[in-house]
Each structure stands twice: as C-alpha cells, then as structure tokens.
C-alpha cells in the first residue's frame, strides 16, 4: 500500500495575546507526525480542544502550518489553500460536524452541489445537473432534492448532502470531522455504511475524527490518539482496543458509555478522570498528560517522552516504554 498523506513534525500555533516576554502563542498542533495509507480509514480521537480540527483544517489548506511538512503523494503542500493549485485542492475535501451551518440555507441543494462541479470539473447547464443528480444518487437521495433548501430536510439528509458536496470534485482523500455526532444511532449507522460503500466504490482515503470510540472501533483501519496538540498513541484498530498502552487511552476506553452489562465487563477497569484540564497556552512540562496521569513517576514531569515503537505498527508516547522508566523505578527502590 502506498502512503497518500504524510505529516512531518507539523505545528500550528495561534497568537492569542502578548505579555512582558512578547507574543503569547497557543500551540494547537505541536509536532505531529504520521502517515496515511491509500484507501485506509485513519481514526483520530482525542481530548476536546486537543487540536484535531486544527490539524484537519491545516491538512485541507484552510490554515497555513506554523512549521513542519504536509506531503501529499510525496509533494510538500504545506502552503495555504489559496496558493494550492486547483488540481491539488480537488484531491482533499472535508465534511464538517454541523451540517446545519456548513450548508448555506439561502441556496438550493442543486446550487450547493453546482459550485464545486463548476469549479473543479467545469460542468455547467445540463451536464452539471446530470452530475448533481448522480451525486445525490451516490448518497441515496432522490433527484427532486436538487430544488430543495437545506433547511427543509432532516439532519441526516443534510449530512448526506455535505458528503455529496465533498465528493463533487472526485477527491482521493476526505477528512471527516465528527460527521455523525449530531445524529441518532440509526441515522448514523446508515451514513457510516454509505461512507464505507463510497470508500470502496471510489477508492477513497479517510481521516475520520470522532469522539465515539465505539464507532471508530468499527470503521477505522488504524487509530491515533491526540492529547494537547500531540499524538500519544497510534495502533491498528483491533490491537488498540485489546492492548491499549498509553494511560490516557486506557482512561478513554474505560470511560466509554455502553448499553449492556456484558460490554461493561469488556472494558478495562474504570480509570476516573479528575481535575482541571491543562491548557494549550501553558502546556505542562515533561509528558503533557502527567498532571492527570494515574501512573506517573518522577521523570514524567521533567522529560518529554519520545514516541516509541512498542510492537509492529504500534507507537506510544509514554515513559513506561522509554529507558527513563527503569531509571526512575530504581530511584524508587532505593528510596
């Protein structure tokens, strides 16, 4: 399998004010490296405010990176979207969480789909209408919908339209930023099944952002966890759930709300999350998770752990897997 997208030490800082020392930056994405394989679904899960959407927007070109590289099929595309070539823009598309506000209520669905069809494929008139009907067919909506306004259709259907719009340019990669979190589980199931079918049909690669671990368990090839602007674990989906290694991952999985006692028993022992959530303006020293970590040792507040390969394809950023850990333990044993 070929690598379609690679982020190398990608950073995105926002300037949020200044103090005596000079400007103050918020490190929303703080040195993220990963590869996405062609045709896979990479799940991206993480804390609220950990920088997932910022990472997504940077990849699709809505933000210019502060540092690092984004390689698309080997070509560095880390410049802003308005400087990306049309040929490149059409390749990476995005679907937002809230279909209500991402579709203009003053346009018909035909007009909404028409825009990218003109822009990326030069289609007008009858050819455009035909292509728009074909897009609706892909998401199982009838042709009459071309004349409807987004405000007159349901939430699930709006999200189907947003997906159709993202597919209009015939992209090879689609970033899905919480595409179903506003929907009930039955409508969600239909949308995800549709996304899986479209992926096969059009050979799409997905970067799928969600808070729902039960969903990601069932759709992702691999899963990455983000905490305060950095990745802290990356593994194949099944292994990720069977052998989670990072303490934050274990906390996440143990907090997943489930609907039966059997599933309750499958979860790791509950690790309760307490206390304040640290800030991306003032990232804690050492391992940024240490203030909330139930397994921390003395080294954790001092040294920032490196990402370590613990098993084939399974990466973890935690001192329990670095050489520092045995040293710390020794200190413990002496004391």
């Amino acid at each position, binding site marked *: 399998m070929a690598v379609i997208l690679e982020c190398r030490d990608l950073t995105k800082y926002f300037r*949020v*004010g200044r103090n005596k020392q000079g400007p103050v930056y*918020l490190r929303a994405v703080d040195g993220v490296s990963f590869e996405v394989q062609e045709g896979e679904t990479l799940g991206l*899960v*993480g*804390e*609220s*405010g*950990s920088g997932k*959407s910022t990472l997504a927007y940077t990849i699709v070109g809505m933000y210019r990176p502060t540092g690092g590289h984004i390689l698309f099929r080997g070509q560095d595309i880390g410049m802003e979207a308005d400087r990306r070539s049309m040929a490149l823009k059409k390749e990476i598309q995005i679907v937002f*969480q809230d279909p*209500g*506000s991402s579709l203009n209520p003053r346009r018909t669905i035909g007009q909404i789909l028409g825009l990218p069809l003109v822009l990326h494929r030069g289609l007008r008139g009858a050819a455009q209408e035909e292509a728009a009907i074909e897009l609706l067919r892909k998401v199982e909506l009838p042709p009459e919908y071309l004349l409807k306004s987004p405000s*007159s259709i*349901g*939430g*699930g259907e709006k999200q189907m339209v947003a997906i159709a719009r993202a597919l209009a340019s015939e992209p090879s990669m689609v970033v899905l930023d*919480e595409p179903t*979190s*506003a*929907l*009930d*589980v*039955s*409508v*969600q*199931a*239909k949308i*995800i*099944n549709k996304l899986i079918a479209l992926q096969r049909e059009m050979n799409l690669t997905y970067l799928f952002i969600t*808070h*729902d*671990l*039960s*969903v990601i*368990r*069932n759709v992702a090839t691999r899963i990455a966890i983000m905490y305060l602007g950095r990745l802290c674990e990356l593994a194949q989906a099944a292994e990720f*759930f069977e052998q989670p290694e990072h303490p*934050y991952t274990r*906390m*996440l*999985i143990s*907090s*997943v*709300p*489930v*609907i*039966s006692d059997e*599933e309750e028993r*499958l*979860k790791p022992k509950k690790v*309760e*999350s*307490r*206390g*304040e*959530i640290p*800030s991306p*303006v*003032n990232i804690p020293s050492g391992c940024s998770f240490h203030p909330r970590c139930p397994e921390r040792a003395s080294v954790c507040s001092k040294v920032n752990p490196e990402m370590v390969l613990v098993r084939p394809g399974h990466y973890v950023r935690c001192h329990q897997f670095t050489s520092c850990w045995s040293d710390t333990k020794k200190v413990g044993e002496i004391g």
Partner: protein
Amino acid sequence: MPEEILLDIKGLNVWYRVYGGYLKVVHNLSLQVYRGERVGLVGEAGCGKTTTMKAILRILPESVAHIPRGEIIFRGRDVLKMNRAELQKLRSRGIAMIFQDPTSALNPVFTVGEQLEDVIRFALPPEERQKKRIHDIAVQALKEVYLPDQERILQSYPVQLSGGMRQRICISMAITTPRELLIADEPGTSLDVTIQDQILRLLRELVEKHGTSIILITHSLGVARQMTDRIYVMYAGSIVEAAPSATLFKEPLHPYTVGLLASVPKISGGGIAEGIPGRIPNYLNPPNGCRFQPRCSLSDDRCLSQSPPILDVGGGHYVACFRYER
C-alpha cells in the same frame, strides 16, 4: 422514587406553519418529571425533542410555531397560560436550558466573557452587581466545567475556541444559578468521553446538592443508561415507550426502540449495523395510524388506521404499540 410531579406535559401538539400547510411535528405527547428525577429523552434526529423542550420554555419562534392543543404544567401552573412576568421568572429562576448547538447559542460578535458575565449579572440582585464580583463568579463558573485558562477564554470570541470548549461554556451559563429543572439538550456531543464523564458527574452533583431535576436529551444511549432514572423514547413527535432506564435496555418493547438499540455500535467490534430502514415521516401529511407503521415490519391493518394507545405493562413501563394489548 421521588413523588412530587414537577413537570407534567399532557397531550401536547406543536405545529410549524410552512409553505403548503402545517408541519404537525409534536403529536399528543405526554411526559412527567418528578422532583429530583433524572429523565432521559432519546429518539431519531428530527423527531421533535428540541421542539418539545422549547415549548416548555415558550421560546419557539412565535411567527411559525403553533400549539393547537395540550398543557405544560410546571409546579401546578400551565406554562402556556403564563403572562410575560411569569415567563420571565420561569426562565430566570425555574428552568434553565443547555442548548444543543453551542455555535448558534453563543453570539459570534461578543466575547465569551461579555456573554457569560451578562447572564451572571442578570441573576444577581442589583446591589451585588460589582464588576469584580461578576468576573470572579465567571472565572469560577468556567473552572467548574473543567476549562483551563479561564482569563484567556473570557477574552476569546467563540470562533477561537474548540467545539467542546464552546459546549462547556453553554453548560456553565446554564448552571451558574441553581434552578428546579435543567434541560440539557445534547450536552456531551462535542466532548471526549473523559471530559463528558466529568461533566455528567457534575450534573449528577447538581441533582444531589440542589434537588434539581434534569431532562437529558442525548443520542448516546450509553450516556442515557448511565445518567438517568427513567427514559422516554420519542418517535416522530410522540412518546412510543417509557421505562426505568435499566428496564428499557434489558427489555425494549416498541419496535422502534428495538431497532434503535440494535443500531448502537459495539466497543467489542462486529461492524456497523444497518439502521432502521426508511425515514421519518413527512410532517405535512403524517400517517393516520401509528406514525412508525411505514417502517415497522410487525404492523397490521389496525396500525394503518388507528393510533395505538399508551399501554401500561407494569413496573413503570409504558409502550404505545398494539402488539402489547392483552
């Protein structure tokens, strides 16, 4: 089980006027909330959950929303008959609502601080409205919902914050002053499960400390199971099933509830279910009989022509389906 009924909705109907007629959305809906009780409300996107909650607070858009029938009794008074002053009091003291969509609940042109401090100022008696005091309460309110950098957040505009941060700001606005009923419309959708867990614990403490009742609307059935005493399942504007939470998950009865529970993805894997076939009915011309009939594999002729009554199957479990008639 607490006994005093705080909220009693009886036979509520809500219609929206649109081009070509009325959308008959909420249909003969009845629902009770006892004092200190945590009630869950679940159902398909577009089934009318938010509409019902807005009716309780009388904040539906008056130009299009119409309530042809029904009563909403809060502490013995019909909200639908209240005057301006009573409504004002209901909204500032009686009931608070956490809105589903934090992006539209917050005004993009004001900072978070300006908006939050406004809410706090309004709730304080005039003699206590000092700038410093209001600011301190605002900082504390953000701490309570586990937001870091309170000062930065107060100075930020909504677009500068992540979805989950905006959501917690809306929660903090709703809980700064204690109320008798808190309506939480999807309070956890943009939060990761560890913070969601912390927020839900916070809501639970509110119930215990102030005896607040909660209506929790959520698409996460796991959250509903964990957080509520009783659950109402809504389909196309009507309640189709109500039961103590544990009972509902062990013994779902209504075909819609059964389909909904089967759609929940499992953390143990096994793929994504198909979802319930079909779509929610057109509210301009909803089915005459059971509103779920067009999607129900168990329906017969009677379901086509008659609305099923709400049947008491015992143990506080109610279901609106002919199959459970004795």
